[in-house]
């Protein structure tokens, strides 16, 4: 930072040239090379930076003016001898911010040590907002920083500036409490306490669990949801709340969701266990946040569970199917509480239930949940499975599935066999095949005598050979082959290799031998090295004779580049991208929550 500013006079020309050349590379009249919220005090989280970045982009799209915000501590200003305003302008220009050719926009700088805030209009932004409004916004920022941290201060600045611009740049904002005057619109809701930090939590069993201020649901849907939420509360002792609104009142979704839950008497027990789905329909800030409260809920709502649930919800909400999306989310939340995972089959035992293994002789041995087998095929396979069962004294089960309900495939296969009453005798002897419809993956599960001959190699061959057909959607043929192979394995102790497997072995053998031969020959040829003229004198350098004296080191400039490299793998996430997940954060009251959210 220091050097970036120090060499500003030398580097600025190059930097601006580079920016102007690249500014329109992605089709936008601005550069997205850097985040628009730069926090040199390093207190903003990644999720908060992402949120602020999107807020600034939205601001830019609305007003055709850039908005970049910097937290610059005193140490950096002192080292450089800059005022906060000078630093704001230098950073803005050096990092190539600005809308269009004129780099129009606002640079907002906040000093977290002194609480000083400056707002510098640049390019065409000059004169768009009156000095009075700019002063009012600048004086409001510390107020929001105190309440919600730097994230809240920057977020409020964006909303206040937006408000001023929408009102011609002279909105009459007053410095004292200007933020509240604007952000409230019709004022904060009545339930919002005057002193959030000393708020005494309470439980209100009669408070509505569906608050649809954004009017997304029909009355009938609201009643249906209320009824279902009451059932869940009664059944599981956990509070699930749905809240929609058209604004988050100048706060982040996460904080507003937490405040709504905290200040309205929700939650069961001393720990106020429960979760709140807040859907914000603010056109500039549309998204949702799931706020979890209480140790049990926070432990259940892992990042993986959050992403899985958010993926499903995103598909509904992005299509505008709010009622179905929320009702589905409620069922997933219920399943999470009931079974410890957001999606689980009916036969999966509930959390805390003591499961006693059992045998169900009447259960079907061909379970075609994926509906990929014809009736006659099922009957044929059932007859063959029964014959094998009788022949070897163990259960033989085939199951087609379309999902593993968030479990790993192996876990699902084992759970299916265990929780559906399969197996002979005390050890529940038997072997099962689970084929997944979409991927064609074949998983083998076994118990007792069924596992005796299932060595790792046999298991791998059973799965691979079956899969070679199921991947081509030949499920009946795959199941038949699997029964043949199980018969062979039980009879001989091994699963025969396929012709293709032998062919692969032969090819691999040929390649390996060719590589080994070539490497050996190469090494032998290197030993036949011919004499060469020497081109260096390394061996004649006198040890310790090298003297290197520093006569002048001059710092020239700093260049900065950035590369998109997300930490989290997003390919398995929904089309809305990964969720912002927070394992712990605080609401305005200081209460602890976890949660996740996404924009749509």
């Amino acid at each position, binding site marked *: 930072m220091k050097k970036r500013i120090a060499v500003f006079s030398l580097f600025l020309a190059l930097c601006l040239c580079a920016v102007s050349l690249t500014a329109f590379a992605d089709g936008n009249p601005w550069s997205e090379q850097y985040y628009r919220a730069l926090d040199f005090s390093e207190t903003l989280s990644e999720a908060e930076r*992402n949120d602020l970045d999107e807020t600034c982009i939205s601001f830019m799209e609305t007003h055709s003016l850039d908005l970049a915000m910097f937290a610059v501590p005193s140490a950096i200003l002192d080292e450089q001898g800059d005022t906060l305003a000078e630093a704001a302008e230098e950073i803005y220009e050096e990092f190539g911010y600005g809308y269009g050719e004129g780099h129009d926009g606002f640079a907002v700088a906040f000093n977290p040590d002194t609480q000083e805030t400056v707002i510098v209009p640049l390019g065409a932004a000059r004169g768009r907002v009156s000095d009075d409004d700019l002063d009012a916004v600048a004086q409001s920022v510390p107020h929001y920083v105190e309440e919600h941290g730097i994230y809240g201060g920057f977020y409020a600045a964006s909303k206040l500036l937006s408000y001023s611009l929408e009102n011609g740049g002279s909105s009459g904002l007053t410095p004292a409490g200007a933020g509240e005057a604007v952000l409230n619109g019709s004022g904060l809701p009545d339930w919002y306490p005057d002193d959030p930090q000393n708020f005494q939590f309470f439980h209100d069993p009669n408070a509505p669990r569906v608050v649809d201020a954004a009017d997304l649901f029909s009355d009938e849907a609201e009643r249906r949801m209320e009824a279902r939420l009451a059932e869940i509360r009664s059944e599981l002792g956990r509070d699930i709340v749905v809240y929609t609104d058209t604004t988050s009142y100048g706060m982040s979704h996460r904080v507003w969701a937490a405040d709504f839950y905290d200040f309205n008497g929700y939650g069961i027990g001393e720990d106020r266990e429960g979760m709140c789905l807040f859907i914000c329909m603010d056109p500039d800030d549309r998204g949702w946040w799931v706020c979890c409260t209480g140790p049990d809920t926070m432990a259940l709502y892992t990042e993986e569970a959050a992403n899985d649930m958010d993926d499903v919800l995103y598909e509904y909400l992005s299509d505008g199917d709010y009622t179905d999306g929320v009702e589905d989310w409620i069922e997933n939340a219920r399943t999470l509480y009931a079974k410890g995972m957001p999606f689980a089959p009916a036969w999966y035992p509930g959390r805390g239930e003591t499961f006693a293994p059992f045998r169900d002789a009447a259960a079907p041995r061909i379970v075609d949940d994926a509906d990929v087998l014809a009736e006659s095929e099922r009957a044929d396979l059932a007859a063959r499975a029964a014959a094998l069962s009788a022949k070897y004294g163990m259960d033989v089960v085939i199951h087609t599935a379309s999902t593993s309900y968030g479990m790993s495939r192996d876990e699902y296969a084992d759970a299916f066999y265990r929780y559906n009453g399969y197996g002979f005798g005390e050890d529940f002897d038997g072997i099962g095949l689970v084929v997944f419809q979409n991927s064609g993956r074949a998983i083998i599960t076994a118990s007792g005598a069924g596992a005796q001959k299932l060595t790792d190699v046999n298991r791998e061959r059973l799965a691979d050979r079956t899969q070679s057909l199921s991947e081509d959607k030949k499920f009946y043929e795959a199941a038949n082959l699997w029964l043949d192979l199980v018969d062979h394995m039980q009879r001989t102790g091994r699963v025969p290799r396929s012709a293709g497997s032998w062919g692969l072995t032969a090819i691999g053998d040929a390649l390996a031998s060719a590589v080994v031969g070539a490497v050996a020959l190469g090494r*032998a040829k290197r030993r*036949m090295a011919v004499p060469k003229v020497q081109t260096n*004198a390394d061996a*004649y*350098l006198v040890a310790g004779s090298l003297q*290197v004296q520093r006569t002048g080191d*001059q*710092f020239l400039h700093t*260049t900065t580049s950035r590369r998109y490299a997300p930490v989290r793998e997003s390919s398995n996430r929904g089309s809305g991208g990964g969720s912002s997940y927070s394992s712990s954060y605080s609401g305005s009251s200081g209460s602890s929550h976890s949660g996740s959210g996404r924009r749509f």
Partner: protein
Amino acid sequence: MDPIKEQKCPACGAPMRFDPQTGALVCDYCGATADLSESSGANAPEQPAPAGDTIQGLDFGGLNAQATDPDAQALPIYNCVSCGAEVIAAAEQFSLTCPYCGNNIVLTNKITGKLRPEGVLPFRIDAKALPDAMNRFYRDKVLLPRNFFSESTMGKVTGVYLPFWVFSGTLSGALSYRAERSSTHRSGDYEVTDTDHYRLERDVSLDFENLPVDASGRVDDALTDSLEPFDLSEAKPFDPRYLAGFTADRFDREKDDMESRAKERMFSSASKVISAEVSREYDTVSRTGGSLEADLRARYLLFPLYLFDVAHGGKSYHFAVNGQTGKVVGEIPTDKAVSRRYFLLRAGAVALAVLLIAIAKYLLGR
């Protein structure tokens, strides 16, 4: 001064030769020996008076002119002092053996004044040990044609003192560099890399010692370079008696010409070590300017080599052996049929092993 100096046995008058194993003169006829440390007697070295300037480090300016002086070359034919036969010596030779009586002769008029070598590295390896050295050399050369090397294919071995310029000195100068130092941190979904750019100025100096450069055009540089290293701590002041029984050549490539080659090698190494030192504090460093100057001294020394050829397939392959260390270098052919067989044997062995393992695993049900 008599232009021909011979090494005679003080006991029987027969020719004496330098024996690498004992480091003394030996008479092959009566077995008498003469220690080279003896400074008196019939075999004491005759110290010719320097002509003109003495050999002092750098000043070899007029040396080549003297080497090509008609007086130094006007005696292509000598009369052997021992048998009187006429002996023809090549222009660069100043030590040879009379082909008629075996007398060892040193042509002292070719080593007077500035033509006199400053020192000599005596032979330490005897010619009889060469077949063993060659066998060791061939041991891991598995792609050689069969019967490439045998005593019958090995041509006549010549022990030669070859002239070398040996350079020592200092490289120094002021150099400038462009350097970069980067640091990377994460910013959301981005990896942000800040790269600081610097201009560096450095005064550098470093020393090189005893870099030998072949001063004879008779042997390929690739061969003589590959024979390195030579141990110059064993160098002796020049004494013609070390030459007895060996051929010796004087230089035919000027010191100034060879200095440029020495500089090339030194600059190459200097550039590498200086860059490594300068870049210690930076991620990347590239040189942008400045230059190194070389302040070099040269010594004119004789190095011991055995030279011979191996005849195979109608072609002659040249070999050289470091007479001090026994290191062998030479060009060797690769037999295509042997190479093919070498590849197939190893590939086949691996293929068979993999196949047997696969069959065993199948039979064991794994």
